C-alpha cells in the first residue's frame, strides 16, 4: 500500500511554528487581516479605498510612473482616479481573461481564450464610522461555459451582503457571500478550491452561498462561524446547505496557523471537510502558504453509494523579485479516495505574477499534471496559461 504523503506533510507541518489572508500571499506585506484591504474580512471581492491605495503604493510596479511618489499613486488609486467618490457609492469593475493552451507542446494543442470574470458592483455605507452598516452588491457573468453545458454567460447577481460591525472586534454578514473555509487562494482550479466547491460555475459547487457569517478579529487571532443554505443561481438539487468554522492565530512574526471545518449536503452529494492551513510572510513581500485537508464525500444520487475519504494539499510560494514582479511556484496533490486503486493527482506549476501598475495584473503559468495510479502510467499533462486581470 502506498503511504499517503499527506500524513508525512501533516506531521512535519505540525512540528514547526506554523497563519490565513485575502490575496493570501500578501501576508508578506505585513497585513494581518484581510479587512484592511477588502470589504469582506475573509478576503476576495471588492477592495476598500485603503486596499486600492496599498496596491498602488506598495505592490504594483512603477515602471510607467517612475517619478510619481507612492503617496501620489495612492491618492489617484480610486475608481475615478483622484476624484473621491462619496462613501455611499463606491463602484468597482473586474475583468479576468485567460489564454489557455491545453496539452502544451504535445502536437495536439488546444488553444482557448476564456472570459473568466466580468464583475460590476458597488459598496454603500451611510457614514464613515466602522459601525455603520455596509451593503455590497456584485453582478457577474458566468465564466466561459463552452465545455460545461450549464447556463449561458448571462449577467447574474453573484454576491450581495450586508455587513455589521456590531461590537469592536465583531463583524456579522448576511446575504449571498463566499463560504468560510481554508485559504482563499485566487486560483479556482487549484486542487485546494475546485474539489471543495469553491468554483465560479453553477451546478459545479459555487463558492458563494446564502448565509450568515460571524467573524471576530483580534490582534493575534481571528475566528468565524458560517451557516449557509445554498446558492439560488444553482439548480435546487445542487444547492448545498451546511456550516463551517475557521480559526487562525499568530505563531510568530508574520506566521499564522489556522484550521477549518465545513459540512454541507445537497440532494445530490454530502461533503465534510477539515483542513489545517499556514501562512508565512517574509520581510520584503515574499510569502509561503500551505493547506492540508481531508474530504469525506458521498454521492446521494447513486443508491447505497459508499463514502469516499480523500484529501488534498497545497504548498505555494510567492517570491518577490522586484516591486510588482513575483515568481510563483506551487505543488498540489489530490486524492478523491485514499486506497490502493485510487489515483494520486499531482500538479506542479511555476510562473510569474506581475502588477505593472495599479488596476492591472498579468499571470503566466506553466503547469504539469501527473496522475500516479497502479493501473497505468499516463503521459503528463501540460498547460500554459496567460491571464490578464483589470480591477477598477
Amino acid at each position, binding site marked *: 500500500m502506498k503511504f499517503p504523503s499527506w500524513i508525512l506533510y501533516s506531521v*512535519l507541518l505540525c512540528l514547526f511554528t506554523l497563519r490565513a489572508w485575502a490575496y493570501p500571499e500578501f501576508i508578506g506585506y505585513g497585513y494581518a487581516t484581510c479587512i484592511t484591504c477588502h470589504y469582506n474580512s475573509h478576503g476576495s471581492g471588492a477592495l476598500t479605498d485603503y486596499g486600492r491605495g496599498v496596491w498602488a503604493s506598495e505592490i504594483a510596479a512603477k515602471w510607467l510612473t517612475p517619478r510619481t511618489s507612492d503617496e501620489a499613486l495612492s491618492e489617484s488609486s480610486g475608481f475615478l482616479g483622484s476624484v473621491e467618490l462619496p462613501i455611499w457609492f463606491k463602484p468597482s469593475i473586474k475583468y479576468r481573461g485567460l489564454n489557455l493552451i491545453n496539452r502544451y507542446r504535445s502536437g495536439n494543442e488546444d488553444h482557448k481564450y476564456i472570459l473568466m470574470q466580468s464583475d460590476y458592483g458597488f459598496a454603500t455605507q451611510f457614514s464613515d464610522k466602522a459601525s455603520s452598516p455596509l451593503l455590497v452588491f456584485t453582478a457577474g457573468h458566468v465564466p466561459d461555459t463552452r465545455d460545461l453545458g450549464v447556463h449561458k454567460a448571462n449577467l447574474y447577481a453573484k454576491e450581495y451582503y450586508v455587513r455589521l460591525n456590531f461590537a469592536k472586534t465583531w463583524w456579522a454578514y448576511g446575504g449571498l457571500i463566499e463560504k468560510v473555509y481554508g485559504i482563499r487562494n485566487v486560483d479556482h482550479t487549484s486542487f485546494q478550491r475546485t474539489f471543495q466547491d469553491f468554483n465560479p460555475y453553477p451546478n459545479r459547487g459555487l463558492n458563494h452561498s446564502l448565509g450568515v457569517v460571524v467573524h471576530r478579529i483580534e490582534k493575534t487571532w481571528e475566528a468565524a462561524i458560517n451557516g449557509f443554505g445554498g446558492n439560488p443561481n444553482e439548480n435546487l438539487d445542487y444547492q448545498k446547505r451546511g456550516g463551517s468554522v475557521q480559526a487562525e492565530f499568530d505563531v510568530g512574526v508574520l506566521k499564522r496557523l489556522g484550521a477549518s471545518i465545513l459540512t454541507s449536503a445537497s440532494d445530490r452529494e454530502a461533503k465534510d471537510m477539515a483542513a489545517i492551513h499556514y501562512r508565512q510572510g517574509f520581510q520584503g513581500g515574499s510569502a509561503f502558504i500551505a493547506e492540508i485537508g481531508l474530504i469525506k464525500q458521498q454521492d446521494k444520487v447513486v443508491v447505497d453509494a459508499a463514502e469516499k475519504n480523500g484529501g488534498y494539499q497545497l504548498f505555494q510560494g510567492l517570491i518577490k523579485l522586484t516591486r510588482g514582479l513575483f515568481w510563483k511556484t506551487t505543488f498540489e496533490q489530490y486524492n478523491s479516495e485514499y486506497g490502493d486503486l485510487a489515483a494520486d493527482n499531482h500538479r*506542479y506549476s*511555476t510562473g510569474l505574477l506581475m502588477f505593472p501598475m495599479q488596476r492591472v495584473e498579468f499571470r503566466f503559468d506553466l503547469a504539469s499534471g501527473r496522475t500516479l495510479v*497502479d*493501473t*497505468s*502510467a499516463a*503521459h503528463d499533462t501540460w498547460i500554459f496559461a496567460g491571464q490578464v486581470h483589470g480591477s477598477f
Partner: protein
Amino acid sequence: MAASKFILFLLLICSLNAKASIDLAYTTWNETLKLEAGGKSESAETHFDGYGIGYGKRFKTTKTSVYRYSLSAFFGTATAGGAQDTIIYQRSRISVLALLPAVQYVYFPQRGVGIALEAFSLYRDFMLPQDGVTSASSGAAINFGATIGARFNLNRNWLLFMKGGPVILEGGTLYSIGFQML
C-alpha cells in the same frame, strides 16, 4: 532498523557541523518506457515516486548566496506502461532505490527566501519485470538533470523547498517537495 541507524548517523553529523543539513523529501519523476514485442515497438511511460533522505553541506557562502552539495537516497516504487496503444505491458509497485548527488546554487532575494538552481545526477537500481514476450526498458540507469526551486525558512531549524525540472536522458520531469533540517 538499519534505516533508522542511518538517519541517526546523519542527524549526528548534522548536529556537529553548522554547514551541514538533512533533506527529507517526496520526489517523483517520469521516464520514457521503450517496449518491443513481435517486431513492433512502442513508447510509453514509467512513473517513479517515493521518499528520500539526504545529507548536504554548504561549501561557499556569500552575503546573498550559498553553494551547496548534497547526496540523497531515494526509496520508492515505479509504475510502468498501461497507457500505450498496441503492445500490452503494465507493471506496478516495482521497488526502486536511487542515489541523487547534486550541486546547488541558492540566491537569497530576501532574508529567509531562496531561489535554488541545481544540477543533479540520478543513479537508480530498478528491474523492470520481463514476461518473455515483451522487451521493456525504461530511461537510463545513470541520468542527469537540472531543477529550479523555491526555499522558505519556516524557522531557524527548518526550511521547506519545492523544485522541479527536466531529467535529460529519455526522461521527463522531476518534482520534489520536502523539508531541510538546518
